[in-house]
């Protein structure tokens, strides 16, 4: 096995991004797999030797992340998203077309590609395809077969703003001719907030962010300023900032837009946050299924470095994931960033005390960080004036499912109800079907029945409605959707994504999936309805990380709100 010298130089450069030997493991796996097509024993051992690790350390990683393969795949690796929105939009039909394609092709299903608004989505190698139809798929495959190569698939154009939107983060992206380049971003006033921030004391910025009352946009909604203020001080260790760009909660596809269309807004937010928290190094952990986004960020960082933004007060490095939803959980992400299996950590200690590389660490979502330049530039009062108390500022929501205009929208929080969003902004349901329920914040959040749609879209209102704002991924379910089938689809996701570390989630998620398969396939028993609820309840609140709840809540909510559908499915054989 020989490694070309150019590749090894690249590898040596990547290694300098990290303070530990082990952290670059995922990067090296990506680079070697890109070169060799797979990660066999030779590759694993080469990486281990290169990084002074034991081969088992690398092998554990290779087998954890589904993007890595130990066997050579076909030249064209087709990955069809099988998760909820794509499933509802007919991804199964795509899979049916992908049989017997020959040795050049490998076909896999993948979990949520974060393109739910343009479902069904798929990837071939690093190319991303939106709004697929069987006919289009046939053409793509035929073209590959004819030419033997894969054509570049252009990135979709940004969606224009709806009149009811209030675009702050998305303000630039639809401006005529705006490319997201550094020059374009500066033309729109970009990096002025950084200049201002660098004249401020870190505490002043922290206070400004605290006063803005911005809550994290990743899913849990934890106040960002408070999170920053928990950082351990005077530890003698560096502080790290980590940007969580592992967007993978089914139904959510907002961070993808912020990265693809306006990366400098995010970089500016990161640089300001580094100044505020004292971090000298920031990592952007971007999910492996977003190779385009990773390149956009790498190029933007290079631009910003050339201009003296990056590298002066803080360094920013891109770290690519490799297909694990659990990396969205901040301590799972940290473990993955350290080059390990993404096993969420037991808390305490929290990352603010002992985080990345054992140092105080703050992990913030892409959208949260993209808000920071605006808060610094316009002040906390300006920010707080948007939204409602407890839910300040704007929020990006993503709508998928059978609505006329699915997509991502930016609103002042609490100023719009779910019904307005679906009916007015998204144009209502296609084909005049009735809504059966709505998942309000990614598939892990409890479904809201159709009679409850007048709830305003903010953290508190949704909590009072018995669910949560989550990641802002809204999935509309119409009357023709089988709830048993939808529950199975969601359960399959969490069983696939359970890291396997702790007992209830590891065993319970697959049990639920198997049970739901059986119920769907007509081999159920009357007692399965209660058993399913019990299993979900035995996971809920018993696990190391919130994936337990993420897997349990939707099942419990579907059972609670649509019990008769399950009973019907379970009694027909009973």
């Amino acid at each position, binding site marked *: 096995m020989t490694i070309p010298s150019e590749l090894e130089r690249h590898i040596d450069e990547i290694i300098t991004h990290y303070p530990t030997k082990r952290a670059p493991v995922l990067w090296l796996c990506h680079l070697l797999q890109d070169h060799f097509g797979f990660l066999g024993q030779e590759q694993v051992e080469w990486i281990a030797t290169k990084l002074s690790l034991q081969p088992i350390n690398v092998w554990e990683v290779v087998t954890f992340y589904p993007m890595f393969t130990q066997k050579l795949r076909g030249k064209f690796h087709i990955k069809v998203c099988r998760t909820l929105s794509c499933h509802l939009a007919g991804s199964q039909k795509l899979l049916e077309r992908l049989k017997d394609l020959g040795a050049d092709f490998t076909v896999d299903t993948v979990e949520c590609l974060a393109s739910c608004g343009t479902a069904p989505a798929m990837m071939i190698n690093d190319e991303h395809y939106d709004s697929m139809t069987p006919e289009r798929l046939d053409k793509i495959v035929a073209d590959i077969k004819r030419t033997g190569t894969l054509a570049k698939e252009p990135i979709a154009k940004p969606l224009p703003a709806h009149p009811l939107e209030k675009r702050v983060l998305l303000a630039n992206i639809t401006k005529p001719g705006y490319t997201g380049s550094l020059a374009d971003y500066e033309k729109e006033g970009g990096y002025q907030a950084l200049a201002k921030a660098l004249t401020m004391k870190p505490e002043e910025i922290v206070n400004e962010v605290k006063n803005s009352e911005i809550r994290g946009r990743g899913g849990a909604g934890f106040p960002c300023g408070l999170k920053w203020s928990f950082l351990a001080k005077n530890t003698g260790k560096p502080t790290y900032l980590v940007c969580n760009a592992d967007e993978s909660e089914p139904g959510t596809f907002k961070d993808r837009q912020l990265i693809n269309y306006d990366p400098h807004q995010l970089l500016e937010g990161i640089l300001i946050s580094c100044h505020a928290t004292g971090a000298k190094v920031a990592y952007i952990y971007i999910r492996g299924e977003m190779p385009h986004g990773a390149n956009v960020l790498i190029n933007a960082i290079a631009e910003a470095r050339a201009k003296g933004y990056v590298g002066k007060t803080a360094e920013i490095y891109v770290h690519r994931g490799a297909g694990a939803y659990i990396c969205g959980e901040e301590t799972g992400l940290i473990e993955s960033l350290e080059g390990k299996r993404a096993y969420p950590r037991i808390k305490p200690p929290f990352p603010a005390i002992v985080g990345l590389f054992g140092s105080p660490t703050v992990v913030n979502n892409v959208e949260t960080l993209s808000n920071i330049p605006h808060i610094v530039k316009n002040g906390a009062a300006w920010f707080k004036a948007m939204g409602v108390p407890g839910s300040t500022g704007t929020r990006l929501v993503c709508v998928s499912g059978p609505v006329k205009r699915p997509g991502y929208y930016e609103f002042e929080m609490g100023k719009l109800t779910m019904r307005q969003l679906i009916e007015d902004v998204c144009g209502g349901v296609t084909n005049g079907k009735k809504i059966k329920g709505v998942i309000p914040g990614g598939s892990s959040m409890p479904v809201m029945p159709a009679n409850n749609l007048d709830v305003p879209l903010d953290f508190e209102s949704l909590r009072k409605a018995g669910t949560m704002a989550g990641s802002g991924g809204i999935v509309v379910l119409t009357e023709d959707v089988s709830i048993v089938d939808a529950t199975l689809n969601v359960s399959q996701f969490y069983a696939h994504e359970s890291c396997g570390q702790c*007992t209830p989630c590891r065993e319970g*998620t697959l049990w639920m999936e198997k049970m739901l398969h059986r119920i769907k396939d007509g081999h159920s028993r009357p007692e399965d309805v209660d058993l399913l609820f019990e299993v979900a309840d035995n996971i809920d609140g018993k696990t190391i990380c919130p994936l337990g709840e993420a897997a349990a809540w939707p099942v419990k909510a579907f059972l609670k709100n649509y019990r008769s559908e399950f009973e019907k499915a379970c009694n027909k054989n009973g």
Partner: protein
Amino acid sequence: MAETVKLTIDGKEVVAPKGMNLIEAAKLVGIEVPHYCYHPKLTIAGNCRMCLVDTGMPKLDKDKKPELGPDGKPVIMFAPKLAIGCNTTVAEGMVVHTRTPKVQKAREGVMEFLLINHPLDCPICDQAGECRLQEFSVDYGKGESRFVEEKVHKPKQTKLNAKITLDDERCILCSRCIRFMKEVAGQDCLGFVNRGSYSTLTCYPGQEPKTNYDLNIVDICPVGALTQTDFRFEQRVWFLKETKSVCPNCSTGCNTVLWSREGVVYRQTPRDNDAVNQCWMCDYGRLNFKFINDPTRLTSPSVKSAVYGERVNLTWLEATRQITGKLKAAGTIAGIASGRATTEELFLFKKLVGDLVDIVPHTGEADGKLLQADRNPNTAGAKLTGCATGKLPEILEGIKAGKVKTLIVLGEDLDEELAKKLELLVVIDTLPTKATEHANYVLPGTTFAEKRGTFINGKNRLQRFNAAIPPVGIARPEWQTLTALLGASYAAIEDVFADMARTLPALAGLNLSKIGDLGVELKIEQPAVQPVSQAAEAVAK
């Protein structure tokens, strides 16, 4: 004294040192918090979720003082979620419930989850009888199975290495073995591959565990995933008798348990003693007990007879009569004893032989952990009783020169040429050697498994061990043989020890029961470890 805090566990007040976790704190008042992944000597993993307990803290008022309820007691605010006992440390005023319905339901849930993909092959599982899954199923399980799906299948009966068999279907992924190999044994070789319910314990191909401590992972495996290959299907553990013992294979003296049935020792495992071996032992020591059941063991006193052929068995009475007679007539008596002999034996041997006595050093490489260079378990005992004198070269030279004509050997071998030069050679041993072949009298002894006695380890810790099985044939403990040869009147080993305690200041005031199961540290001025004389070793070879 470490700083302590007061808390309440199941209504019992507990005073626990700061930093202690709830599993250990509960143990202080006799409450068991069941757990799988937690191990006191390893880092905390928190993955099994069996130790979930309900925790609450006093509600504080504006002045940060506990708010009192109508009953005058502090109002307790319970956490919304249960907490894992292994990673929750004690706090002042904390209230912990370990048996409430909420906790019980969580445990039932975890037990059920652990068993759904488990093969439930207890009837053919070697762990049966000492399996935490079995025990906690009885104590905390639901007692019924609700799982009707197809189980996840994983590799079975794989050879982790030459010593250990791995059944991945039985594994509950607690990661104790991974942590042990990395943190204690110092070989980062085990890991999990695959994900979710398909996670599988393995080692990298060709990089199996190869330390001297591998078998400890069998001990700490709470289930039947890791079993000791040479013990598989040998015995059901509930038929085995457990005897507290001490490993006789080096000067550490790891505390052990001998597992025996009907006169056969089937395995040796470590026993907790933080002052000596924590809860580990090395594989070299653990596996080196098979000589106990060697079929060639010496079973009867015998005399080399020119009249009746090679060797004639004697009764003990007759052997004692003949030997004591000959010893009385002999001039200078020399003695070579073993550093594997008990302190009591060495004390009597010294009495019998006198000044021209020494032990034979046995050394190997120290591993920086438990295994010491001094492979004699009782060098310090030999020194204390005056048996370790450094006179071995003198004795051997004396035999060669024909000056020493009478030799008594306790548990050591002797060069054939030297043996032939002696007029009277008495050998007390357990297995045939060159020495027993040429000895005029052979007196069968007992292994450490067949007698009681004490060793003093390299750190001057006096430790006692017990008889697990009866001696073979009419062999008897050496202290009895030596007592007979001395014509002394010790009726029991306690009497020998009492005499020793009167004679040797370091043992003053001690007796066998005072030593206890964990031993006592002796105050001995000089370092007890005998410097190994290269010359002596060379001659002995």
